[in-house]
């Protein structure tokens, strides 16, 4: 007796054009997948010999050619942590505001989006110079982990807002009407209805933005600096993983092996963080309903 379930055959019927589309889509994915494998494979193959417990726990020596990357890991964690602490709440709120504006078809939203595009289109180096001028010099935070975290937050915020905003679009129109008609406060609407629906999207937006932040180099070179010392406070300078990789690869003759080892650590970090959204249950509204 046949039994039908989640793993059943495709829901959509097929045609010749469908086949072509399907082939194209898979082809695109395959090329991208191959690229990922190439990069990842390269990093793993060439970096794996360099990674060990002592590599993670020791201070670097000889400009990073020897020793470990403990201070680099600590600095990275602090910078990224600062960045995400700023980005997540303000980004979610901004996205909510933006999607409210958008619903009312306002021009404001359009202007804000343009602003986000401009920020996205600003080269890292410009952010580095901006961060240096604004946070380090103007606000007097010096070249420090804090300056770097804040600069990074400015860079990542537009991306996060855009991804969140799309996550919020997943709230069905009927649900919005129900919320309106029940005259729920915005707080309840967000906490009990909108955010739970958008939650998986927000988590994956955060992960994606975090990955992006981990990759940033030029902006941090100017704002968190270059120091390999273990940071003692938020106002100390430090060196993040991506800067370390860049420096080892570009400026330190003989730095390649440890550059690859560090890149492997960065990759592992992204991987671990990337696993988070898989643990998040989807609560897509009215997804289960056939009526």
């Amino acid at each position, binding site marked *: 007796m046949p039994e039908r379930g989640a793993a059943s055959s495709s829901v959509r019927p097929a045609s010749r054009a469908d086949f072509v589309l399907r082939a194209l889509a898979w082809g695109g994915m395959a090329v991208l997948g191959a690229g990922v494998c190439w990069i990842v494979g390269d990093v793993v193959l060439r970096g794996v010999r360099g990674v060990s417990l002592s590599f993670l726990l020791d201070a670097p020596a*000889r*400009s*990073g050619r020897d020793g470990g990357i403990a201070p680099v890991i600590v600095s990275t964690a602090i910078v990224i942590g600062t960045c995400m602490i700023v980005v997540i709440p303000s980004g979610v709120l901004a996205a909510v505001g933006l999607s409210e504006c958008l619903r009312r078809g306002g021009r404001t939203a359009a202007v804000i989006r343009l602003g986000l595009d401009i920020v996205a289109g600003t080269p890292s180096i410009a952010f580095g110079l901006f961060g240096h001028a604004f946070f380090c*010099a103007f606000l007097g935070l010096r*070249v420090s982990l804090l300056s770097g975290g804040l600069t990074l937050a400015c860079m990542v915020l537009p991306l996060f807002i855009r991804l969140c905003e799309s996550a919020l679009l997943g709230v069905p129109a009927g649900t919005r009407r129900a919320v309106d008609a029940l005259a729920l406060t915005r707080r309840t609407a967000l906490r009990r209805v909108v955010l739970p629906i958008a939650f998986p999207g927000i988590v994956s937006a955060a992960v994606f933005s975090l990955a992006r932040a981990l990759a940033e180099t030029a902006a941090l*070179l*100017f704002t968190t*600096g*270059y*120091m*390999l*010392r273990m940071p003692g406070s938020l106002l100390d*300078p430090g060196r993040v993983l991506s800067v370390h990789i860049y*420096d080892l*690869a*570009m*400026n*330190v*003759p*003989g*730095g*390649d092996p440890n550059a690859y080892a560090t890149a492997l650590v960065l990759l592992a970090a992204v991987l671990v963080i990337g696993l988070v959204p898989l643990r998040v249950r989807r609560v897509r509204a009215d997804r289960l309903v056939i009526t």
Partner: protein
Amino acid sequence: GRDVPAAGAISGTITVTGSSTIAPLMVGLGARFEQFHPGVRVNVETGGSARGIIDVRSGLAHIGMVSRALRPEERDLTAHLLARDGVAVIVHAETRVGQIDREDLAGIFTGRITNWRDVGGPDRAITVVTKAEGRSTLEVFNGYLGIAAQDVKASVVIGDNQQGIKSVASMPAAIGYVSIGSAESAVAEGVAIRLLPLNGVPASSARVADGSFPLSRELNLVTGPAADLRVQAFISYCRSADARPLIEDAAFVPVDDR
């Protein structure tokens, strides 16, 4: 050094900024210096030689790192020669050319010579890799050949040493020039490049040190007029015998003026 203060006698922060070529070395030197003077913090930042000069002038940094000789218009600053960095001509490992002299090199870079055959190599069109304008290595190189930047006929323009090495290694007919230290460690890592002897002098750090290799640039630490004791102490340390192994380890050639 003679007038070096006693260990621990000075304290405060020393900010060093400038050339990314010198920066990794300064991180190491700073860390050593901090061991002798626990009250001192040496903070190294980078952003290019130009930034080194600007930040020293504006007082944002105590010491600037400049990977070339100071220009006449920069005479308001004091240069302290830290080391020399040889510039080696490199070719792909498979290019069978014994050596090259100044004339041929100028011919190749100005587009007069376009085939390896003309300089004793295989019959193959030459791919010229040069540095982007504004780089100090380019200025040193062009100055040595006596050619102007606009005369250079290059098919690839690169920025950093590593990029130059990768470009040449990926193009079997390429010729380029990079820092000797970087080239030597690339060869040690098995990258497919070869350092060409210039005018019969083998390209090596040792030959730069003994002064027989003709192509090299200065690596300078510059200070403003108001350099205080702490800064002078650090600069003297960088130029002391103590610092020598670190400089050599960074693939530069220490200068013998002590």
